């Protein structure tokens, strides 16, 4: 490991960490077409609809949200596995969105992905050795003998017996397969890894092993992670900063402790209160806020703030009309909500029937605004 990497680790992606990946106004719209011979576009799925993010070198940025909110699409669009409709993705200052062929492949060496489903993401007809050494072959990083040595080394790094390298994926358990996927991602010595729900397909007792492995590898190799997950407890455990997504947009972004202890956005507040805690005493003493309704369809996202239809604090004539911009409300704490100011934000609590309401006296609408 070189000295530059050590430095990064010591800094741990702190406050002033250097930016590794910058995402500017990223949009991914999937066209919906009609017709068999003459296909024409009749609409679009607005999967990612204007995401701005800066990922710092050496940090773990958690990206949370419910299914269909666009978090996985964001991860894939960053790596150009899905081409963004518009927007820029800068890696160490260079835009990836316009790169093609060899130029893109050379950049991809620095960024890898760990997939959700360890059963679907490994080719069942390739041996472990072939799977892990393929990136080395593609990027021409080692000769035959060198690859062999490196595969053994990688398998050991992720906690697998190097003597299993001639076996096939079906001979391994889910947790072991995920380790193989991690070894494959590490093969090219990347700086940045997108972890897309890396533990949700695993058994509860195996998850902790993989989380610990990911953290240990980060310390060892100075990796930067974008950790995509829907499990808020796991994201809290692993992340330095956390971004919350709702229907294609980032609604809140803050340092881990700040986001979990003082969430400002009404959606984040509701989401955190709904996470079940494996402790009956704690569960008895809290009332989870229940949001009414479902997540709207990304085909026809609501006007204005995408959350206004489920938000207990939403104000007519404002939230349903105007798009809230993601702004830095306090130092390092970003939120996209019209009702959040530096001094105050809507405090959400459980009302009648546990449905979310705005706490009495906890928050006053900004001047000039009348409550609906």
């Amino acid at each position: 490991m070189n000295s530059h990497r050590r430095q990064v680790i010591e800094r741990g992606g702190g406050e002033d960490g250097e930016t590794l990946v910058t995402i500017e106004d990223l949009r991914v719209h999937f066209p919906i077409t009609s017709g068999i011979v003459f296909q024409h576009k009749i609409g679009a799925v607005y999967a990612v609809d204007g995401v701005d993010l800066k990922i710092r070198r050496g940090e773990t940025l958690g990206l949370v949200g419910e299914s269909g909110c666009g978090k996985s699409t964001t991860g894939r669009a960053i790596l150009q596995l899905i081409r963004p409709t518009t927007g820029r993705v800068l890696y160490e200052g260079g835009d990836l969105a316009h790169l093609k062929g060899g130029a893109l492949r050379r950049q991809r060496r620095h960024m890898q992905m760990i997939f959700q489903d360890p059963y679907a993401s490994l080719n069942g007809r390739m041996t472990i050795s072939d799977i892990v050494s393929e990136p080395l072959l593609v990027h021409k990083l080692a000769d035959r003998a060198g690859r062999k040595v490196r595969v053994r080394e990688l398998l050991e790094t992720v906690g697998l017996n190097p003597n299993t390298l001639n076996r096939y994926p079906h001979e391994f358990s889910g947790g072991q397969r995920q380790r193989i996927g991690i070894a494959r991602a590490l093969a090219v010595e990347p700086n940045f890894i997108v972890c897309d729900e890396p533990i949700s397909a695993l058994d509860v007792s195996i998850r902790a092993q993989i989380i610990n492995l990911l953290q240990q590898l980060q310390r060892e190799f100075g990796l930067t992670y974008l950790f995509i997950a829907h499990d808020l407890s796991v994201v809290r455990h692993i992340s330095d900063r956390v971004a919350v997504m709702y229907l294609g947009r980032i609604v809140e972004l803050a340092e881990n402790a700040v986001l979990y202890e003082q969430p400002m956005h009404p959606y984040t507040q509701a989401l955190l209160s709904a996470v079940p805690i494996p402790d009956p005493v704690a569960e008895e003493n809290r009332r989870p806020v229940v949001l009414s309704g479902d997540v709207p369809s990304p085909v026809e996202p609501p006007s204005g703030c995408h959350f206004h239809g489920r938000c207990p604090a939403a104000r007519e004539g404002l939230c349903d009309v105007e798009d809230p911009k993601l702004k830095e409300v306090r130092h390092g704490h970003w939120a996209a909500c019209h009702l959040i100011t530096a001094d105050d934000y809507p405090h959400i609590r459980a009302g009648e029937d546990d449905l979310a309401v705005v706490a009495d006296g906890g928050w006053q609408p900004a001047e000039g605004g009348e409550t609906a």
Partner: protein
Amino acid sequence: MGVDANTLLRLTDLTVDFASHEGIVHAVDKVSFSVAPGELVGLVGESGCGKSVTANAILGLTRMVNNATISGTIEFLGRDLVAMPESEVRDIRGKDISMIFQDPVTSLNPVLSIERLVTEGLEVHLALSHADAVKRSIELLQLVGIPKAAGRIKDYPHQFSGGMRQRVMIAIALSCNPKLLLADEPTTALDVTIQAQILRLMKQLSHEYHAAVIVITHDLGVVAGMCERILVMYAGRIAESGSAKALFGHPHHPYTIGLLRSVPRLNEPRRDNLQTIAGLPPDLAHLPPGCSFAPRCWLATEECWQQVPQLLPTDTGRLSACLHADKLIAGAEMPA
């Protein structure tokens, strides 16, 4: 055993084996427990621990599987479901015992309208006329919180979101006023905010209908807030059982401790490292001779490898299938 007012369901030594080309898979191995009327019980374990097979056996679904062998008894209101002929089980299944399946997308027949799906049970089990059944269906759909239920009854499952489909499934399960509701991972396919809605609805309806519920899940958080009593399963056997508060507060089985330690919690300070349970769950076709958790256990001794531990009462009035339960009761900690 006669009918006991405090026992709705009693399983005694329930064993379900499946023949496979790898040998006999012991999916459920001598499981015994009982459920009181109106009780909320959580059956917790990882995939392959036999929790779903147990539920399917209670509902008489394993009897339809060719390679399954069932032994032991499942007494429901004093009658043994295992020995009962299929024609009689059919009168109970879907009426007195009903089930909410995990995946609302695949478990509702996509070519049947919501009306057909909900009225079927009402017409078969309660012999309602179609008009009455439709009326009752609309009431049920309103009860589970489907907006504009009367207008949506002609819709098909694909026109509903995941959360709404799970509500339809709950409406179907409740349609004949069941005495026992089996919920197999009822919220696993749902989002966190929708999960909160569904859990709240199930708890509330169980009180209203005085229906006992067995919630089957791998998520300790789901049962912590909902269930009064917890059964922890591992490799086809019950590892321990007890009231939710006691069990979560002071587990009497090393597996439960490991399980609780290995998940991060929102109400605790962040830790540098999660504690892990070493190794993998065993292959059910080749179980170790003694305690099936012994290969992963930090307390395991020679005798753990030799005999299968029985689920026995502890001094604290609970049940544990660990030979070293007394050490855990005395406060033995899991090594970091």
